[in-house]
């Protein structure tokens, strides 16, 4: 099982995670019971202040996410497939929002289930590291200083390199 959703609307974190841990997608599809013992999830949300080197500590008013619609789902699916080929995971879920968000809004959810925790932790962090560097999303922040495109971080490239 694996799922990718790109959407403007918010998602219900609790409902998504309960659905993952109880393997509701698999069960709806009549698949065998999965023996899930571990669920690891990541939520990324809009911070209240900028804190990179260029623009430190300004209040964030809005964050707008642009993407490349025909490529996005393909790129995220490829990342999930790669994670599943590397680790013994049961199900993966990626939900990524696009459009204009406010501070504390959820941006992204990645959730992974497996029999044991080590595989789920690795696969979840792997998916996030690849999403950050390979999936076609771009963020623009509005602060009291005006609008600006968020710059990619070298630390994200370094995080991805670890998995090679």
């Amino acid at each position: 099982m694996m799922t990718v959703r790109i959407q403007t609307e918010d998602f219900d974190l609790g409902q998504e995670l309960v659905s993952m841990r109880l393997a509701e997608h698999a069960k709806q599809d009549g698949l065998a019971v999965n023996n899930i013992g571990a669920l690891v999830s990541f939520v990324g949300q809009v911070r209240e202040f900028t804190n990179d080197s260029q623009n430190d500590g300004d209040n964030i008013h809005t964050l707008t996410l642009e993407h490349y619609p025909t490529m996005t789902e393909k790129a995220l699916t490829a990342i999930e497939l790669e994670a599943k080929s590397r680790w013994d995971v049961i199900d993966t879920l990626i939900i990524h929002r696009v459009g204009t968000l406010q501070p504390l809004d959820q941006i992204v959810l990645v959730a992974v289930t497996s029999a044991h925790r080590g595989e789920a932790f690795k696969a979840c962090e792997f998916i996030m590291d690849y999403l950050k560097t390979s999936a076609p999303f771009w963020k623009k922040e509005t602060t009291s200083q005006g609008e600006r495109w968020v710059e990619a971080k070298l630390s994200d490239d370094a995080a991805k390199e670890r998995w090679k």
Partner: protein
Amino acid sequence: MNINILYFARIKESVNYSSENIDLPSDVETVTALKNYLALRGENWANLFNGKQVIRAAINHALVDDMAKIKAGDEVAFFPPVTGG
């Protein structure tokens, strides 16, 4: 050959449109050659595509490096390093 080009994020804002259909000279066969070709359009284009800025490319929805070959009918996208998540 004829291809479609898409622009995203600050590149789209800078060139001021999001897509174009273009007939390329026959010697423009790679992403690098296409960047060099676009850079000839004027100062704004030169600043973007002269190699001093990191501009990523995708062909038919897959990330590629600058050595990648372009063929007729391809959808080539140019965008800054991604910042999702």
